[in-house]
């Protein structure tokens, strides 16, 4: 390559760099237009409308939609059901976040090494993630029915007639349902924790053991802080996923017994079905606000834990 050619190539490269700088990117912005259009139509607009409809009298009973101010909010607050549903949603989300992460991390530690058996077990625990949530709900509903397989098995083992109402207890059923939710999603949490654990440098772990740390100390003082990004992701997704839970609850308990598992989404579905669309959007807006109010500080806190890395 002659020096003239080199200079030419250099100036060309220089020019394209300048052009790129001028336009801010290597592609025209409208390449993103289809994606933006889809996003706008199916996400941005519906979410924006979610801030409009709660202030209207939209219902299935008439064709017109009029603004009514805050009267829907007043109605919904006066009727304690939505606050009960909010409470159920928060309990549900907290339980799922704890169960899914404790069990997910335990499974990750158990199946961390790459043996053939571990690979098989990982696949087995990941399988429920792929099953439809409704199907999972109906399967467990059948298993846990008073005359279902679980009571049948317990009766056979103990030799007595056992008829525990697993899905019919106003205090404990919410725990049973969150455990079902956990069973469905724990495989995903496990895989992410395994990936996190594998990204921890062997040198660090070795250094810890040379310094005299036992296995528990190595895990709790060295490896656990190093998987902070995985914890952030898992806790946040478990919590947000649980707050938006609908299908598993609907299939197992339909929100019962006596509304004890009626999370906001199930309540919303119920009043939407009564034709009270505006009241349903009030619930939907409340859920949105609650998720934002909880998710932002939670994620901010978890991200701060990552600063040590």
């Amino acid at each position: 390559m002659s020096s003239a050619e080199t200079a030419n190539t250099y100036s060309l490269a220089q020019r394209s760099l300048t052009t790129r700088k001028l336009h801010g990117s290597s592609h025209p912005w409208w390449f993103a237009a289809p994606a933006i259009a889809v996003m706008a139509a199916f996400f941005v607009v519906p979410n924006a409308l979610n801030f409009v409809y709660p202030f209207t009298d939209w219902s299935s009973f008439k064709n017109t939609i009029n603004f009514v101010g805050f009267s829907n909010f007043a109605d919904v607050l006066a009727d304690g059901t939505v606050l009960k549903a909010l409470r159920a949603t928060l309990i549900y989300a907290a339980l799922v976040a704890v169960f899914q992460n404790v069990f997910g991390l335990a499974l990750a530690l158990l199946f961390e090494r790459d043996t053939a058996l571990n690979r098989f077990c990982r696949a087995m625990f990941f399988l429920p993630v792929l099953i439809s949530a409704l199907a999972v709900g109906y399967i467990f509903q059948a298993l846990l029915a008073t005359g279902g397989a679980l009571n049948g098995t317990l009766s056979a083992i103990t030799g007595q007639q056992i008829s525990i109402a697993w899905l019919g207890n106003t205090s404990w059923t919410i725990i049973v349902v969150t455990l079902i939710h956990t069973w469905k999603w724990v495989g995903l949490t496990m895989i992410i924790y395994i990936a996190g654990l594998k990204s921890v440098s062997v040198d660090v772990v070795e250094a810890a053991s040379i310094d005299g740390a036992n296995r528990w100390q190595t895990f709790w003082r060295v490896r656990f802080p190093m998987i902070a990004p995985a914890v952030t992701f898992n806790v946040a997704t478990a919590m947000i996923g649980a707050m938006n839970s609908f299908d598993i609850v609907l299939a197992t308990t339909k929100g019962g017994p006596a509304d004890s598992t009626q999370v906001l989404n199930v309540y919303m579905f119920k009043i939407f079905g009564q034709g009270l669309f505006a009241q349903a959007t009030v619930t939907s807006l409340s859920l949105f606000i609650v998720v934002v109010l909880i998710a932002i500080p939670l994620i901010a806190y978890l991200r701060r834990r990552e600063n040590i890395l």
Partner: protein
Amino acid sequence: MRRTNRTKLMAAAMSLTLLAVGGSAAQELAGVKLTMWVAQASATLAKQPAEAFEAATGAHVDLVVVPDPYESNIPTKLATGEKPDLAFYQPTVSALPVIQPANNLLPLDGEPWVQKIGTTEQGLGIINGVRYAAIVKSPSISGVYYNKAVFAKAGITAMPQNYDELVALAKSIKAAEPDVAPFYEAGGDKWPVQWHLHALLSGLDQAFWQDVNANEASWTDPRFVAAVAKYKADIIDGGLAQANYQTGTFEEQASSLIDGTAAMIFQVDALTPLLLSKLSVAELNDKIGWLPVSATAPQSQFVADQTNGVVAFKTGDAAREAASKKFIDFWLGDDYAKFIQTNNYPSIEPAVPSPAGLPDITVAQSASLSSATGMWYLYVLTAPDIHLYLNDLLFGAKTPEEVADAMQRQFVQIAKAQGAAGF
């Protein structure tokens, strides 16, 4: 373009009329495709008339099953812009307004079948004086199914003449046969728990419910609260229901009644097909009896559900709208005898005899209809979720007063949304 379409339409309509008059019925509606929404519970019901109508006219009727909860999925689907030609729909004052009949449904006044059906049935499906639903089958009738052997063993010969006598009878069974549950309550399925209450409230007539509609009376009326309290005190707290009344199911109502672990089931006639899936008609006649009872008399209660009524939608397509009406006319006309024969239903048309070999229970229920009292579903603007609130009652999460409060609160909320006068 518009004119061409209109011309085409007129031509189609004219040829339709000509064909109908000409009597070459076989392909009269060839190429017309109708969609009918059906529920899981009514999925097979429309099959026979649809197939017969297809054979007779050349039209195609597509039966689309809309999953449960049907009554709330229908308005949701309509709200998203989907619209069938026909649908099963509860033909009551409380359910029809949800789908805006004046905007969405074809008026069916003056159709040839109206005069053919019985007078009780003729009174259903009317909103603001306009008929919007065709009644294809007898309304649901509520009463007490009982195990004949259990009654015989407890020495019961006289049937109760009112609700208090029914409770006394249940107590005598409990005393005579401690292992038998006098009533089997299906709290797990929620909806079956309400029938006692309808019997207890048979004294509240149409005028009372009209006052409720005008916001001049309330669900918190002492008579309503007293009825809920009586059900709880006598049946639940009085130990007249089986031990797992909170989680019992509709399915188990049938099996426990057949095997005699339960003496009685207060249910609508939806229990009969379930019993018949386990027993032959002869066995059913032999084992199971039925008795009507209200608060004060041996009378049954009736209500219409989605299996009773068929509505036709305004679709803007004249040919399809005409075909929809024709289908209903065919169903309740030429095909009616075959329809009730296929489904083993009692006839609702005085001129058409009921099929032979109906179970004794069905015959008794059908006979009780003339003196039966209508449940509130037939009269109120909107029916609050009594089954959910009674479920709370069974779990001790609501008192009878709170059940009444919840009914009133939900009623007011929906009445307001409907724009009802007085709210």
